[in-house]
């Protein structure tokens, strides 16, 4: 299942990557499972997506909870808590 994944701010810098297309296995059915899938890559990925890290997610450009279901073609973004205004 192909999805587009984006990273912003400190996540983008630590991962050295602003986004990529991922062919996720069928077991990766939610935003939370995708986060875990990325964490399992190890190295900087394990650090950025450690369970203790505050990471927010958006699914197709709306804020999403870890339980939100994902499907092929979705755009999922991961980023730190926002600091605009």
């Amino acid at each position, binding site marked *: 299942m192909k999805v587009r994944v984006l990273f912003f*701010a400190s996540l983008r810098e630590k991962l050295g990557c602003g986004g990529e297309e991922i062919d996720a296995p069928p077991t990766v059915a939610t935003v939370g499972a995708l986060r875990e899938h990325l964490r399992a890559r190890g190295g900087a990925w394990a650090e950025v997506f450690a369970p203790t890290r505050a990471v927010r997610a958006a699914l197709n*450009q709306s804020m999403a909870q870890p339980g939100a279901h994902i499907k092929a073609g979705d755009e999922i*973004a991961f980023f730190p808590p926002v600091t605009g*205004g």
Partner: protein
Amino acid sequence: MKVSVQKEDFDLGREVRDISGNDKIGAVASFVGLVRDVRMTLEHYPGMTEGSIRSIVDEAAGRWQVMDCTVIHRYGDLEPNAQIVMVAVASAHRGDAFAACEFIMDYLKTQAPFWKKEHTAGGAAWVEARASDDEALKKWK
């Protein structure tokens, strides 16, 4: 309603004049946020940022009488004292205009995808989210 996420600076006076063309409008409340004494870079999520600000404005319009509204938020490199954000809300009376303006700013600070990176003599660092900004939302529940 106007929402703009842009690099360029804005002119609050011009934006308020543009908003007040309707003769049923009796009040325009506005807010401008400025950079303090630290140079910064603002990153955003093109598309989602505009969409989330529109959702916040729609939510405000569901709670108060909002006859027109302009929100402009800048991104990119910003010097000390530069303008970052403006919100202007027009209504028949001031109560709705003040409340909706503050509501939009409180939600924008915690919901719209922007991230500030500060540049000091010691280097660059991403700004941490503040718990007090989340606290500010509770008064609107």
